[in-house]
Structures are given as structure tokens and as C-alpha cells.
């Protein structure tokens, strides 16, 4: 039932708004609203109950194992939430003077410094609001760099076929043509194919390493050399930074620009789809182009760097300074981990993934890249089950929900048929990993016995499988009072 259907005309919450209704005599009637907007009229308790109950219809990290590949659904420490929501932080106006923001700015400056070290980059700007905005900033800086060199021949961006969809979409937003690079049978970028297409028209290469195939790109040195020798720049998509935190740094791999997903690696909450934070780090030659504002420190005071201080900046990506509250959560998490804890993130997420991968293999599931180490994630392909049993990956995914496990990422990356991309993260215990693989096996057995039953899943959720085609054809996006 929708909140609107619980609404009754005349029911109000007088304690939640001022009681007085001063008249607005100076504004001409033609500029005033005539008909009241249709919003719910419910009591405070009804509202609290309604949204509490809605929350209970969600899977979440706090309630379920969520091995969603490439999304890094790890535990979000509660301290990050409560300490970032202290009254002094919540009350700080984004345009307040530097003198009344030293506490907040100290956190931001230290976060910039930590992210520089973790990524091996020369400078970091925290302002991009999400990974996709970080990508946009990164590609815009690559473009600005070539433009500043007077090099207008570079019209192409190279993207491996395993890449996230945001990569090609971002390159297009920056005015580039996208060229896809194939992946070889082992899951590495096809170096020969890369050599063939790279040239004076190459602005750069966008790469995720470890890739979305769950493997580390072993020839990264060669790739970096090939692209750099052609005059192109290397863009690092930080989606999988969790796998290498403290072990190897994108800057040392030769990347010129990187975005990080703090909502993945630095454990800020996903919030049902955002907000995220997508800081960017750059090598020396791209530093002048970083988005503003950034925080500077002169040894005594923190101050904002703006367009005045960075005249070659690509500019601003939001009205103020990005998702400040998310950045504070990441800062708190980083302090709780410290340098010792950061290395453990990659170690134990890799241990968990390799353990699960071995269990899957032992139980007879097919791996996409059986000869490779898993990074913090790995791919199982259900191609055989789909063909033999008539039960596909989507069916497995939906049936997992009945067992209380969120499905892994399905049908991504696009080049592995019927795939499950499984990322357990470092915060899950061994019992949970064992239980998940047992359930996966059990579903396979169910499929052997009664494929139709599995294809009808889920059975235990608030709704059964939804009609997506109808949703797109008979658009119902806004409730209308009958």
C-alpha cells in the first residue's frame, strides 16, 4: 500500500512545521500557486510505521550476505555514520568562511593525503560525487591535457570489452570516439590487438585492474608502455581497488589518472543506490587540471583552492564541494583501519574470493578462468546448467534470494555467458562463504529435480518475479488519485 493510500484529508503533523501562516501580500497572484500539491496527509506514527515496514522489504548488508561482484558490499562501520553526523558537521554551511570550517577541512586534507599515498598519485581532488563523475573528471582532464599541448589529433579512447558501461558512456560525454579492445582467452587485454589500434589518434586507454573478469592484468607494464609511447594517457577505473589496497598502487603501474569509489573500497554505505563519492588522483602532468575546490594546508590553516588558484582546472562538478558527508565517512573508516588495516583489506578479500572459488570448483561449478588466481572476486559460468537443465543464471539468482542470499552480479561482464560475478569481501566469515556455496549446489540439485520450480523463484520475497516488459511499455511512474 502506498503512503498516498493511507492519507486522509485534514490529517496533519502540527509539531513538524511552524504553526503560523503569515500572509504573502507582496507577491502577485499570478506568481503564486493556486492548487495545493498532492502530498500525503498522514500522522507521524503512520509515516514512521510505513517507512519502517518498507525498509523491512529490502535486502541489505546489515541483514544479508551480498556478494555482488564489482560492488564491494562490505560492512559499513556504524562509527562512520554517527561520527560524520555530529551536529558541528551537519550545521556547517558549504559557503561558510574557512575560519569556521577548519575541523571539517582538516579531515578533507588528511583524506586527500591518504588517498594520494594509497594510489601512488601526485595529487587528489575529492569533489566528484560518484564513480561516474570521477570518470568524467578524469577523461575531461585527459582532454584538457591534450588540448593544452595543442594536440587536437587525439579523437579516440580505447576501452577493453570487459569494461563497465560507464567507461564508454563517459568517453562519449568528453567528445571521444570509443574503440573496444578484445580480451584474450586468459582474461588479459589482447596486447597485439592493442598495438594494432593505438596511434597518434589515441587520447587514452581506460582500464580497470584487476579487471571486471576478476583477474589481475599481468602485462600492465607493457600496456602502459604501448599507450604512453603513442602519446596516450592511462585512465584507471578504481572500481576494484579493494583487491589491491596496500599491495600495488595504480601510480606505480603507470596510470596518469584514477578515480576511486569510496562507497566500495572505503566502505561508505550504498544507501539503496547512492550517494557515492568518486575522488580523482593524477600524476604530475595532470595536476593543473584537477576539479575544484580542493583543500590546501600551509602548516597553520586549511583553505580552499578554487579557480583563482588553479586557472587550468576542468572546473566544478557540483554546486559546492561534492558529497562531503560521504567523504567524512571514508575518512573515519581510513583512520579506523590505519595503514595496517588497509593491507588486510586486500589480503582477506582475496583470501575469501579464492577460498570460495576453490569451493565452487570442488562442487563441480565451471569457472570462467580456472587457471587464474581470483582477485577479490571471480566468475562462475552457468552456461552448462543453462543448456542441460534449462535453468539460467537469472533463475539461480532469484532462487538465492529465497535462501537469504543476495544474488551475485549477473550477466556482467558481458563477454562471459551466463555468468555470476562473485565478490565476498573481507568482512564475511568462513561459515557464510561455506553456506553460500552449499546453497548454490543445492539449487543446482533442485534444478535437476524440478527445473520449473527453480524458474518460478523467488517464493519468499514481497513479490514474485516482476513483469519488466509491462513496466517499460505501460509506463506507471507516478501514482494518480482515482
Amino acid at each position: 500500500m502506498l503512503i498516498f493510500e493511507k492519507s486522509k484529508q485534514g490529517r496533519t503533523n502540527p509539531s513538524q512545521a511552524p504553526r503560523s501562516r503569515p500572509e504573502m501580500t507582496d507577491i502577485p497572484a499570478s506568481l503564486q500557486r493556486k492548487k495545493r500539491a498532492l502530498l500525503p496527509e498522514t500522522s507521524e506514527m503512520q509515516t514512521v510505521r510505513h517507512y519502517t515496514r518498507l525498509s523491512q522489504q529490502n535486502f541489505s548488508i546489515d541483514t544479508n550476505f551480498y556478494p555482488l561482484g564489482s560492488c564491494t558490499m562490505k560492512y559499513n562501520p556504524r562509527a562512520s555514520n554517527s561520527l560524520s553526523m555530529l551536529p558541528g558537521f551537519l550545521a556547517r554551511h558549504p559557503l561558510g568562511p574557512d575560519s569556521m570550517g577548519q575541523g571539517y577541512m582538516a579531515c578533507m586534507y588528511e583524506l586527500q593525503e591518504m588517498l594520494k599515498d594509497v594510489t601512488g598519485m601526485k595529487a587528489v581532488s575529492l569533489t566528484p560525487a560518484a564513480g561516474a563523475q570521477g570518470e568524467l573528471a578524469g577523461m575531461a582532464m585527459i582532454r584538457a591535457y591534450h588540448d593544452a599541448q595543442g594536440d587536437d589529433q587525439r579523437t579516440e579512447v580505447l576501452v577493453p570489452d570487459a569494461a563497465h558501461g560507464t567507461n564508454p558512456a563517459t568517453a562519449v560525454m568528453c567528445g571521444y570516439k570509443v574503440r573496444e579492445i578484445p580480451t584474450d582467452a586468459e582474461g588479459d587485454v589482447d596486447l597485439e590487438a592493442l598495438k594494432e589500434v593505438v596511434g597518434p589518434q589515441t587520447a587514452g586507454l581506460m582500464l580497470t585492474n584487476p579487471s571486471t573478469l576478476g583477474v589481475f592484468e599481468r602485462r600492465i607494464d607493457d600496456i602502459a608502455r604501448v599507450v604512453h609511447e603513442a602519446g596516450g594517457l592511462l585512465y584507471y577505473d578504481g572500481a576494484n581497488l579493494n583487491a589491491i589496497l596496500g599491495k600495488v598502487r595504480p601510480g606505480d603501474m603507470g596510470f596518469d589518472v584514477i578515480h576511486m569509489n569510496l562507497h566500495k573500497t572505503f566502505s561508505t554505505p550504498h544507501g539503496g543506490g547512492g550517494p557515492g563519492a568518486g575522488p580523482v588522483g593524477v600524476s604530475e602532468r595532470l595536476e593543473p587540471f584537477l576539479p575544484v575546490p580542493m583543500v590546501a594546508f600551509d602548516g597553520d590553516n586549511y583553505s580552499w583552492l578554487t579557480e583563482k588558484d588553479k586557472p587550468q582546472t576542468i572546473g566544478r562538478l557540483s554546486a559546492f564541494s561534492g558529497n562531503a558527508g560521504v567523504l567524512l565517512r571514508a575518512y573515519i573508516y581510513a583512520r579506523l583501519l590505519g595503514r595496517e588495516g588497509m593491507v588486510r583489506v586486500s589480503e582477506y578479500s582475496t583470501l575469501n574470493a579464492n577460498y570460495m572459488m576453490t569451493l565452487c570448483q570442488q562442487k563441480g561449478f565451471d569457472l570462467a578462468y580456472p587457471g587464474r588466481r581470483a582477485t577479490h572476486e571471480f566468475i562462475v559460468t552457468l552456461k552448462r546448467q543453462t543448456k542441460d537443465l534449462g535453468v539460467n543464471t537469472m533463475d539461480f539468482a532469484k532462487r538465492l534470494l529465497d535462501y537469504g542470499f543476495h544474488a551475485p552480479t549477473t550477466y556482467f561482464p558481458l563477454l562471459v555467458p551466463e555468468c555470476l560475478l562473485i565478490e565476498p569481501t573481507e568482512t564475511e566469515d568462513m561459515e557464510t562463504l561455506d553456506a553460500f556455496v552449499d546453497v548454490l549446489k543445492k539449487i543446482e540439485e533442485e534444478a535437476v529435480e524440478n527445473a520449473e520450480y527453480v524458474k518460478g523463484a523467488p517464493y519468499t520475497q514481497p513479490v514474485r518475479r516482476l513483469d519488466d516488459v509491462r513496466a517499460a511499455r505501460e509506463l506507471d511512474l507516478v501514482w494518480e488519485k482515482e
Partner: protein
Amino acid sequence: MPFIPHTEKEVQQMLATIGVSSIEELFDEIPASLRNESLQGVPTQATEMEVRRIMHARAAEDGQPLCFLGAGAYDHHIPASVWELTTRGEFYTAYTPYQAEASQGTLQLLYEYQTMMANLNALDVSNASLYDGASALAEAVLMAVRANRKSKSKRILMPRTVHPNYRKTVDAIIGKQGITIELIDYDRNSGCIDPETLPADPGDLAAVVIPQPNFFGVLEDVDTLSDWAHQHKALVIAVVNPIALAVLKPPGEWGTDGADIACGEGQPLGIPLSSGGPYYGFMCCKQALVRQMPGRIIGRTVDLEGKPGFTLTLQAREQHIRRSKATSNICTNQGLMITATTIHMALLGAEGLENVALNCHANTQQLVQKLADLQGVDTVFDNPVFHESVLRISAPLDEIMQALHAQNLLPGYALQDEYPELENCLLVCATEMRTDEDIDTYVGHMQRILGKHDTVK
């Protein structure tokens, strides 16, 4: 180990299962020459108690000043239940609702949000949010260029009375796509666009941006401006304040045909100031344009038993399906902020929002009158305002502001950097949160500080 549950015994068991002797061996595909040894730039691990101490001290340092500053971020009351519910783990730690059956809570909430936002704007549809108001305007500009079928133009008319940071954000985001932004100046007396000065033949246009209220708080003649844009085959992009919409004519009713796209900053509806984010951008449009709208959209449908349910829809527009041909590279929205804002709107209802808006307007009027009565303070524009207004101070503004900051008070926004013609001009705001005593405190400090300067009335 913080946030890692493994016992030493389990680690050994897991390694044995994998068939390696150490965790280190699992990293043997990474070339040795690239390996990093330590993170000297990261402090050593701290306990929650130690971090708590640091964060409390830093939060306290920032002072919680008495706020008369708006300029795109506003200090409004947020009912206690809004964030208590929003930070429930089931909302806070859920992912984007790709698995619809296991995400009905978030999906239904987003559908309710879309309904509330579309109603507030009097437009047909709403998306499930964008990053913030400024990036929403950039996306609206891109959308208008895609959607305007009557014009192949990539020219956009942008008033100077649109928030300066919004204009900068638009420039950065649309950067290299061949779109030109042309500025429209404002009338120096009224503080808004004088429709009489608009050209009879503006040439081919994709869209005209119309802010309401504008950055100076002044109300634009939205009916005339919308009709003028439509006469010239341009789409109308409204940039609006959602609190103001409770009492001002909604974009869908502007002029004869209504605005085509409305966007703005959602922060005033239940999101704390919090240094500028996370906030959220809203976007609504006419039904005919929905397939050009960027961002997540939730639809109501039925399950295989005919029971109503909610799901992400029109995903064929999005990057994870369309890749290089997507309407935008946007992936996430600001889901958690929408959770807060939806609960906020449900608690206040239309009448509560009206009361908030009316009190903001009345408090700002009171503040402006009392300040303008002082020797050395004058109002600058004569058109009506919503909850912000421009005052000229007959003294060096930065000195006055510093003196007010020293009283733990945020006096407003200094306009002269962005608008050189508005030297020593201050944009002030008094929301429903400011009491008569707060206003008198401000006026008292201003009078005393100005008394020390030579001012000319």
C-alpha cells in the same frame, strides 16, 4: 583485526583448501617490480574511541554559527524521525535495487518520491534523483539538446541570475559536446530579466533556462519568459527551489504550456547543510520527454501472480545497457537522500511545506526591513523576493563580514566576486528556523559594527 572476522585457525584451513601456503602467494600474478611495501602517508590504526575523540573535537571547532546564509543551501528544520528512519541499516546498507524482488522497500519509496516530486512541480514524471542541483541543471541542458525535435540547435540561453556555481558546473559537465551557453543579463533595478529586452528574433535555440526564485531571491516573470521561449521553439528548463514550490506557481503551469523540464536542489527538503553534500538533484519533465531523461526511473508493474510491485524501468536509456550510446554516464543516484526527503515530505505534507515557505518569506521580509532601516544598509532590487534578498552595505563588505563571523554569525553571501557590479552587496536569507530574537541579534551586531565605520545613507 578491525572488520575482519577470521580466526588464525580458519585462515590456515582456508589456505589449505585453496592449496597455497600463505595469503601472500595469492598475489603471485602481480609483477614483483610493482609491489608496494608500506603506506607511510596513512596514519597507524586507531580505535573507535580514539577516532571519536578526534571527530568530536573537529566538529566542535566548526562552531554551529547562527545562519543567515543561503545561496543554494538552506538551514531548515528536519523532523527527528527523518534521519532515524533513513539510517536504518535496511535503507542505509542496501545496494541499487537491481534485484527488484529483494528491494521492494527502496523501490516503492522511490516511486512515492517520484509521485511527490512530480506533484510539487506539476509535471508528469520525475526521475529517482541526480547528484545535486547544479549537476541536475547540466543534465537538463544535455537532455534538452537531445529532446528538442523542433530545433537542431545546440544553443542554450542562461540567465546570469542562475546560481554562479550552477553555471560553472554546467560548463564543466557539458564541456566538449559542442553546446554553447549564452548569458542573459538582468535588469539592474528589478534584479530579474526584463522580458522587454529579449530579442524579437533570438535565432535557433535548444532551450531557455529560467530560475525561480533566481539567485538574488527575486521572482522572475516566469509566464512571459516561458511563452517567449516556446514561441521561439526552445524548450523551457525551470530551476526551482522545492520549498518555494509550496507557495509559488509550479513549473508545469508556467505560461500557456508549462516548463518542459524542471530541476533543482533537493537539499531544503530534509537534508542537513553538511558542508554541501551529499544533497540530491531532482528532475521532472513532461511525459513526451521521459525517454530522454537521464538517471534511474522506477515503474510500477505486476508480478507473475498479478500483484503490484516496483522495478527499475526504461533501463534501455542507461549506460549499463547502452554503453557509449547512453543518455548519460550516470550510474548511481542519491538513493539515501531520497529516502530522507520522501519521509520529510510525507511528514510535513503540503500544508506543512506551505507553513515553512510562508515563514521563510515572512522572516526574510522582517530581516530585510530591519537591516535596511539601519544607516548604511539599502535594498538593491525592487521586485518581490521569496526567502533571499540583496542588500548594499555602505562600508567595505569583507571587513563587516569578518566582524560578524567573529560573533559566530553567518551574515550572508558576498556577491561582488561573481557580480562585479554588485560591490559591497550581500545576499541574505532567513529561513523558518530564525526567530525574532535571532533577527534582532543580527541587526544589533550590524548596527554596532557599521557604527564604527563611516557610512553614507
